[in-house]
């Protein structure tokens, strides 16, 4: 046993370079996983501290009692008069009204609206910093109606200076305010890029059209027990208002943060797992190659008396050590990567706060699991094969490994493929319960499909490589080297296939994302073209709501005929939360061709009528004229009559209310989009001029023609695709590393051959060319295989995604071809270092190497 251990360690020590190369691929995968945990854990800790800090002066809070949010991120307002009621309750020391809105937009000194990368612009009423956590850093608090303050970082970022006048856009358009002070939230103003403004309570109410209303009341007790205080408050408050302890508030706010962080963390983890998956292939390949080089040594120790079990054990122990090393270094690498990610994201404008490096037990376990798991899994097969080397191979040259139970492999591959496709199908079409189960089915299924493709690949990698390499032989400058490259790539189908497998996975995912995105874009374009018939659209670039005043102002212009504001909110139907849209039913079909099947929207323009999508009608067996009960956050359950049934859910969704219906049941009035038609006999130029006056009052909004709007939406899709591809690019990077790795080890394996060829007249340049071209062939093979698999996944995904989002498949062959070319060139470049080493081999040493 001790001898086996000693042998294992000596093996590792003897080939440190191989050790490093091998562990590096695993290390990258582990780092990626660790970084996602470190980032989320660190940010959670930071945000938790912020939440606790800012609520430390609070004992209880009074707010509207709601079962669900009627509009995302918007609180239901309560009556300002309740402050007095609360202040009068026994045990209450301080009762501060709280107001929050995302409606207001400040303009920079050049008139451009302040723009963030997704962080909100929040406006508050100025209150006691002890309670709110927002303290003055400089200057003074807003006291009169034309004063406001802003947080220090935003003021710095957007060049807001104390003493200067700035316009703020509210319900009634833009109005001037003087910046009188700068604020800081908590110690570091860690608000992740959000812009915080405070006004006097009266002003912020007026600006947002919510006079006499507030969103919450912060309560500090005079020493009485918190629970007692809360129950006393609840006793004194009307039924639609509730009081909760600060613990509840803190817990809710922490939940909000972790909800958002979780999504981010899971996305990152998803990409990390892709990288890990790719690493596994790389390592498996590497181990197999290393094995090939060790045949003599293995045979020798078998001849000297080591059992098969001992050989297997030694191989797996070696892998285990590599895995542990990769895990440990991966922890460090993950921390560095997390810090790097933060820098990158901040450079993109996300303003993530600094965070402590938190390495939780979960992170360490994950690192070990991934690092050790990957290496052990990858080494199972090589270890088994190592044990099959017979002792006699030490003396007799030309031992070759068995071609690996061909039929058994094929059967396993087929079984895995079937299970994998089933898993994917179940995940997409199977109505599984709960997101984790769906993701498991999808992700697990996809993994199995990839594995089975990788297992099938050796069956056709030789002829494929041979075919792909054919053109090289006909190019005058690479006839011989191309021929050699082609022969080398085609000769070892296992190695070619498993090298290509890494690239295959990366390109399959990119291919799938490209097909889905492309189909999404073209469906969107089609739908936009056929459904959204409005001539003009107004909305906020970050999709923020804005005042309904805008719709009124546009409607007042004679140059426009039909005008409707569109609002998006939530309702509950039979206990399930659903999206609801409101428009002006009278002008609906002139602006949005929803494909009315029965009924008439225009005649249903009243507060008790609702329009539903055909799917809802079919599910519930409803017809025009039937009744449906719907629950609202503000007004509870209300009966509605079905005014019309339509088939096109694009933009309007499944449930639609008339403006009157919304106004009767929702407290918020803000709108998200304004759609307008140019009046007949008015040309575009005239309409644009007329609109310019309204534009001046609301500079933060985009006023666009139908075409311009569509182009901007498509642009956003393109940006999303770029981000996804960048992340997938990291997985590709690992695959390229794998190619470099394999070529390096393959050069080691072919040392004698290269030495021989150098002896009989192959120049260094020809050597380099030979290695690089082989890598190019293998890469192209992997890329093409990946794109084919990606096309399949993309097609399946498009089928699974509902018709309303993607109506037809679009396969951008040109783009995919470009990806294949890039992958080939990248593979060629990845082999540069191994190629140089091959060229620098000492000819004599190489020939003599055994």
């Amino acid at each position: 046993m001790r001898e086996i251990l000693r042998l294992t360690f000596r093996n590792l020590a003897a080939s440190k370079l191989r050790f490093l190369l091998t562990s590096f691929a695993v290390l990258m995968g582990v780092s990626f996983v660790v970084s996602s945990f470190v980032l989320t854990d660190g940010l959670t800790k930071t945000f938790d501290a912020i939440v606790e800090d800012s609520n430390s002066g609070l004992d209880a809070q009074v707010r509207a009692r709601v079962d669900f949010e009627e509009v995302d991120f918007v609180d239901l307002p309560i009556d300002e008069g309740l402050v007095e009621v609360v202040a009068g309750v026994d045990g209450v020391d301080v009762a501060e009204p709280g107001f929050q809105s995302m409606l207001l937009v400040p303009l920079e000194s050049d008139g451009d609206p302040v723009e963030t990368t997704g962080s909100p612009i929040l406006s508050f009423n100025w209150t006691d910093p002890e309670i709110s956590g927002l303290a003055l850093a400089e200057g003074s608090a807003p006291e009169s109606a034309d004063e406001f303050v802003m947080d220090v970082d935003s003021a710095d970022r957007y060049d807001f200076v104390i003493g200067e006048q700035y316009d703020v856009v509210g319900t009634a358009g833009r109005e001037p305010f003087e910046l009188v002070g700068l604020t800081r939230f908590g110690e570091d103003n860690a608000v992740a890029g959000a812009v915080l403004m405070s006004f006097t309570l009266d002003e912020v109410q007026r600006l947002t059209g919510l006079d006499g209303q507030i969103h919450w009341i912060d309560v500090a007790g005079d020493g009485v027990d918190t629970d007692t205080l809360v129950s006393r408050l609840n006793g004194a408050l009307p039924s639609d208002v509730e009081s909760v302890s600060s613990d509840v508030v803190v817990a809710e706010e922490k939940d909000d943060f972790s909800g958002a962080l979780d999504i981010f963390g899971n996305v990152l983890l998803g990409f990390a797992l892709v990288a890990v998956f790719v690493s596994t292939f790389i390592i498996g390949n590497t181990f197999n190659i290393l094995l090939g080089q060790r045949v003599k040594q293995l045979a020798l120790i078998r001849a000297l008396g080591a059992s098969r079990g001992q050989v297997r054990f030694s191989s797996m122990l070696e892998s285990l050590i590599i895995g542990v090393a990769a895990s440990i270094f991966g922890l460090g690498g993950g921390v560095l990567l997390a810090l790097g990610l933060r820098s990158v994201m901040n450079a993109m404008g996300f303003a993530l706060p600094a965070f402590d490096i938190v390495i939780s037990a979960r992170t360490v376990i994950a690192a070990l699991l991934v690092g050790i798991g990957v290496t052990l899994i990858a080494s199972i097969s090589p270890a088994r094969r190592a044990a099959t080397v017979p002792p006699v191979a030490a003396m007799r040259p030309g031992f070759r490994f068995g071609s690996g139970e061909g039929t058994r492999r094929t059967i396993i591959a087929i079984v895995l493929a079937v299970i994998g496709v089933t898993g994917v199908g179940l995940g997409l079409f199977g109505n599984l319960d709960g997101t984790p189960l769906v993701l498991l089915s999808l992700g697990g299924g996809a993994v199995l499909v990839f594995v089975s493709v990788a297992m099938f690949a050796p069956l056709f990698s030789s002829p494929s490589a041979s075919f792909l390499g054919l053109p090289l032989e006909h190019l005058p400058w690479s006839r011989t080297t191309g021929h050699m490259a082609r022969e080398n790539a085609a000769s070892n189908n296992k190695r070619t296939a498993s090298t290509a497998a890494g690239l295959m996975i990366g390109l399959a995912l990119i291919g799938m994302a490209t097909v889905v995105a492309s189909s999404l874009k073209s469906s969107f374009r089609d739908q936009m073209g056929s459904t959204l018939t409005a001539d003009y659209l107004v909305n906020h670039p970050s999709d923020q709501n804005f005042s309904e005043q805008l719709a009124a102002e546009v409607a007042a212009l004679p140059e426009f005929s039909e005008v409707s504001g569109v609002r998006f909110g939530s309702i509950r139907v039979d206990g399930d939360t659903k999206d609801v849209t409101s428009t002006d039913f009278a002008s609906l079909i002139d602006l949005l061709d929803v494909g009315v099947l029965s009924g008439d929207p225009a005649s249903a323009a009243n507060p008790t009528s609702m329009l539903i999508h055909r799917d809802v009608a079919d599910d519930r067996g409803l017809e025009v004229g039937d009744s449906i009960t719907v629950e609202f956050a503000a007004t509870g359950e209300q009966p509605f009559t079905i005014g019309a049934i339509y088939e096109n859910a694009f933009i309007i969704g499944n449930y639609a209310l008339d403006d009157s219906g919304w106004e009767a049941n929702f407290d918020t009035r803000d709108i998200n989009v304004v759609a307008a038609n140019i009046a007949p006999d008015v040309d575009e130029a005239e309409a644009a001029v007329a609109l310019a006056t309204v534009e001046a009052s609301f500079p933060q909004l985009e006023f666009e023609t139908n075409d311009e709007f569509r182009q901007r939406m498509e642009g956003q899709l393109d940006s999303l695709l770029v981000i996804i591809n960048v992340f997938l690019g990291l997985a590709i990077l690992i695959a390229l590393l794998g190619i470099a790795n394999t070529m390096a080890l393959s050069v080691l394996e072919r040392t004698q051959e290269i030495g021989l060829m150098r002896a009989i007249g192959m120049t260094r340049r020809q050597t380099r060319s030979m290695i690089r071209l082989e890598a190019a062939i293998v890469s192209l093979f992997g890329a093409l295989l990946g794109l084919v698999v990606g096309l399949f996944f993309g097609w399946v995904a498009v089928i699974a995604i509902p018709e309303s989002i993607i109506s037809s498949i679009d396969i951008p062959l040109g783009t995919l071809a470009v990806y294949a070319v890039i992958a080939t060139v990248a593979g060629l470049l990845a082999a540069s270092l191994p190629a140089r080493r091959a060229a620098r081999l000492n000819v004599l040493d190489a020939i003599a190497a055994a």
Partner: protein
Amino acid sequence: MSEDTRTNPAETREGTGTALVEPIGDGPMAATAVGLTKIYGSGDTQVIALDHVEVGFQAQQLTAIMGPSGSGKSTLLHCMAGLDSVTDGDVRIGDTRISDLSDKQLTLLRRQRLGFIFQAFNLVPTLSAEENILLPLHLGGREPDQDWEQRVVESLQLGDRLKHRPSELSGGQQQRVAVARALVTRPDIIFADEPTGNLDSKAGNEVLGFLRRAVDDWQQTVVMVTHDPGAASYADVVIFLRDGKLVGRLEDPTPSHVYDRIRALEE
């Protein structure tokens, strides 16, 4: 398009120095070395593989280099063939001083003017026999003289083996392919390092017979390292090394003469 052009810097020889070896007749020298020294390592671990060796290999002859292990015979071959650098001395293939050449020039020299046969691992496993034979030409982007290739293949009895991979050939057949490769470029010299070391006596004698024919019928020059007196007897002249020095020479060798000389050296 041929990427190969014969590079042949013209150089005149300045004085021959004292030659330990006297050529047979007045035939020209295919390759010469004067003061050839090869030292490995430095300081205490220094190994003097070749010690001021002076030798000439006559053209159109089969010369055998022999000596006990560690004598430097393989090193001498490697240095003469431009496969190894020399520490000191003047090595020439014909009139070309090879110690001056860059790696690229040496590579081209080996490709165009030399042929090689190694003891083992002579052939590229992924190429067929024919492809292996034509490899040096193809590396230079040239095609063979069809008649010549035909003649070589027939003489070596490889006609029906051309499409086979090395793994499908016996040891003897592999060596014959190596010989064919060495011949097809009509080189100035063929260097063979223990060409029959891995073969049984029958196959070995076949190969040696071909090498002999190459010299007699086709005016080739062959320099061969061997430890086998029987193989050495095929040569026109045998030179002996010991401890990196040239210590003797034997013309028209017979196996027993060669054997006696070896015995004498090893004492």
